[in-house]
């Protein structure tokens, strides 16, 4: 009985992995169509710069989000200072701002023509004032760090929270101070969480096109879109994208191999204890640090968006916004639930099949996040259209008459597409959380007469709650912001807030795009932030 259930688990996990790997396979199939001419041109004039830029960008953003994300997570979970409770949930708000929106607003504020430099010039009277160039490697790294640190922040918080303050107390009793306790005990124990968050940041950075385009910073994705849109070669674009995938795969595998084989579970996860009360000077520093990050990453850009949205409000706001909102929330909620469920099945399959095969399947299934969205959208669309065409042929054979497209433009296909794109986003926090569940807990539960499902339900799920919660939130927000898949697969007339943003920005009407962007943030994140705050209190 237990054996067949395990087989069922393995079969379900394999089915999920195969399904979501189809688009990735389509991307790889591009190698069947050679594009030597374009490769030769790129090799001679384009790739050198791109690879250098991509390397520095990825390194800079990973280091930046590591520093910012982990330090904020530590401060808001382990330390006590004024404002901590508000910062704890507010610091995740930047998640709701699409990366390209933050990039555009930052440029708008700090460019030569922006209000900051204009004010400085008129105040000082100088025509040419030195100001750090925003359109630079440093500028784009800063913006992406501010946009992406919440991935590391949210996931790492789960690590620190479940370690419990007790662990630091134990470390102190062994002679560690706060600082060495942090570096020698807390940080190593949080490694799977931090790595999971950083992997998401890395994939997002490598697949980003919107923000780097606004900064005119040429990365690997620039070449991908240049091949497709400008040189009309989708095969060359997909070949480049598949190389990006291999790089990500290599990095993620390297981290997994290098990770020390140790245990990350704790005896009593989340055991209550007292937070470290910071001295006045440290508390002031913590407060201003959190406030500065929050201001730069959220308050300032959001203020600008609100101003713009207010300008266009009377003209653009109409009853259809209720529909946009409804569609957006429906998709995001359903996709978040489905993706988290799929990720949970994969994580359990690996837990119960320690062999390498299941692990490899999981790795491949979570690669969709590293492909630039528009390329993956085509990878999804091609098999869907193929299936539709087969069904139509069948209908023609059966009824001798034409049927319309069957599955394309259905919500179910959209949801499957989101799962395939965002599985990694749900998988990483859940996988990390599973590290806290010690294997001997299963034995203990069985000893108490609990069946397998009852063990999962009554023992594991409460321990995984933080990870699951994070997974659901991250996917929810990602789907709200997602554009290429939504654009390609939505039913006719079934527009979302992200679609509105696309229509405005595609014609360069950024101010008008502020209205749907603001709606996106308000509708999506405020309820979540409130939820998070409640979860934090308990």
């Amino acid at each position: 009985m237990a054996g067949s259930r395990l087989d069922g688990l393995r079969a379900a996990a394999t089915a999920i992995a195969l399904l979501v790997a189809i688009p990735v396979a389509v991307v790889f199939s591009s190698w069947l169509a050679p594009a030597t001419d374009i490769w030769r041109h790129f090799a001679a004039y384009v790739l050198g710069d791109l690879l250098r830029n991509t390397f520095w960008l990825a390194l800079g953003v990973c280091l930046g989000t590591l520093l910012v994300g982990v330090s904020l997570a530590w401060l808001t979970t382990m330390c006590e200072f004024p404002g901590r409770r508000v910062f704890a949930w507010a610091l995740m708000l930047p998640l709701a701002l699409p990366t390209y929106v933050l990039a555009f607003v930052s440029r708008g504020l700090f460019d030569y023509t922006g209000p900051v430099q204009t004010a400085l010039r008129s105040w000082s009277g100088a025509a040419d004032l030195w100001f750090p160039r925003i359109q630079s490697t440093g500028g784009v790294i800063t913006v992406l760090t501010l946009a992406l640190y919440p991935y590391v922040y949210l996931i790492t918080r789960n690590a620190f929270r479940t370690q419990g303050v007790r662990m630091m107390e134990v470390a102190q009793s062994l002679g560690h101070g706060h600082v060495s306790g942090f570096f020698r005990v807390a940080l190593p124990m949080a490694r799977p969480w931090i790595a999971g968050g950083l992997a998401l940041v890395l994939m997002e950075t490598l697949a980003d096109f919107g923000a780097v385009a606004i900064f005119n910073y040429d990365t690997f994705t620039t070449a991908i879109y240049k091949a497709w849109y400008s040189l009309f070669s989708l095969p060359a674009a997909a070949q480049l994208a598949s190389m990006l995938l291999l790089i990500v795969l290599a990095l993620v595998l390297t981290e997994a191999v290098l990770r020390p084989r140790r245990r990350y579970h704790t005896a009593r996860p989340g055991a209550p204890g007292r937070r470290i009360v910071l001295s006045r000077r440290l508390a002031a520093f913590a407060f201003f640090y959190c406030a500065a990050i929050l201001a730069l990453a959220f308050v300032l850009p959001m203020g600008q968006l609100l101003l713009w949205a207010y300008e266009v409000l009377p003209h653009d706001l109409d009853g259809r916004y209720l529909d946009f909102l409804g569609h957006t929330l429906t998709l995001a909620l359903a996709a978040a639930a489905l993706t988290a469920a799929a990720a949970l099945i994969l994580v359990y399959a690996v837990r119960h099949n320690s062999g390498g095969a299941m692990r490899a399947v999981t790795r491949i299934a979570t690669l969709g996040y590293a492909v630039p969205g528009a390329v993956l959208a085509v990878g999804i669309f091609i098999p869907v259209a193929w299936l539709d065409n087969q069904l139509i042929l069948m209908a023609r054979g059966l009824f001798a008459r034409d049927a319309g497209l069957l599955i394309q433009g259905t919500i179910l296909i959209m949801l499957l597409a989101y799962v395939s794109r965002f599985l990694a986003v749900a998988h990483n926090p859940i996988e990390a959380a599973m590290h806290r569940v010690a294997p001997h807990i299963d034995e203990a539960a069985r000893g108490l007469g609990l069946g397998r499902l009852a063990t999962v339900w009554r023992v594991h799920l409460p321990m995984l709650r933080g990870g699951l919660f994070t997974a659901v939130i991250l996917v929810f927000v990602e789907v709200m912001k997602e554009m290429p898949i939504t654009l390609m697969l939505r039913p006719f007339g079934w527009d979302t807030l992200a679609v509105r943003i696309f229509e405005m920005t595609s014609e360069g009407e950024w101010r008008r795009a502020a209205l749907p962007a603001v709606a996106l943030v308000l509708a999506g994140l405020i309820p979540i932030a409130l939820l998070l705050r409640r979860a934090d209190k308990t």
Partner: protein
Amino acid sequence: MIRAVHILLLTVTSLLAAASAFGGEEIVVYSARGEQLIKPIFDAYTKETGVKITFATDKEGALLQRLKAEGANTPADMLITVDAGNLWQAEREGLLRPIASATLRANIPAHLRDRENQWFGLSVRARTIVYNTQRVRPGELNSYEDLGGPKWKGRLCLRTSKKVYNQSLVAMMIAEHGAAEAERIVRAWVGNLATDVFPDDTKLIEAVAAGQCDVGIVNSYYYGRLIEKNPALPARLFWANQKNKGVHVNISGAGVTRYARHPEAAVKLLEWLSTPKAQNLFADVNLEFPVNPRVPPHPSVAAWGDFKQNLIHVEMAGELQADAVKLMDRAGYK
């Protein structure tokens, strides 16, 4: 189990087959032109004729892939883009069909529609020079080529070469001067840049107005939007190349898909879009120029003055786009 699946499929397909047999006349459009720029025009058409129009917007590249993957079963009757290059590419991939229409031929100048009658321009997008009125006299300006001259050293702003508008402009220069001369000009532009290239035209015009640079090359409707909001902006348009071939223009245009279900209805819509009334609706909503030479532009657009447009066929934008992109890469135009 297999029986159940069969029965389910039978029910679903028969329902859909039945559903598709009902309903009045309807046209399905795939559009790379944003909803806010097409819906008002479609609404007017529906009001006038009772024909319902359903549409989906997306990027050109995605729409082309969509048409390709759907093949003979595509629901789309019409494809709308905001440049000639992608229409040219759609034709090359066999996604469009030729249309024999005397109305379209009469309303749309020959250089703005396909020689094989597979696609047609609906509005003209002019790309010309913008200058700072406090630092430049219009008499100092002449042509795109001239912006590579020594007097503009450190005074020129350009938008990124990744935008199709610049790719079309350079493609036209290749067609006119040959690749070697075009590359020399682009290199000279790059040498004259005042600052890094810009991600969009709006930012570029603002930079010209703020004095970060003195001249730039932009599409006229971006200027129109800014000047509408701030008439005191110290920036004006200069119609380039009036002493020789004329201003570089591109089109926003459309074609009827090869596998359209309602080809006659789609052709009728296309013809209607080329008539004076629709032309003003289509162009004015984005301050573009009507493609039909008998239709005057919006008054605030007409205020920028008359100009001679380059009569070179816009299909060159598609044909030479890849060459132009590679040329700009070689010349270091980012």
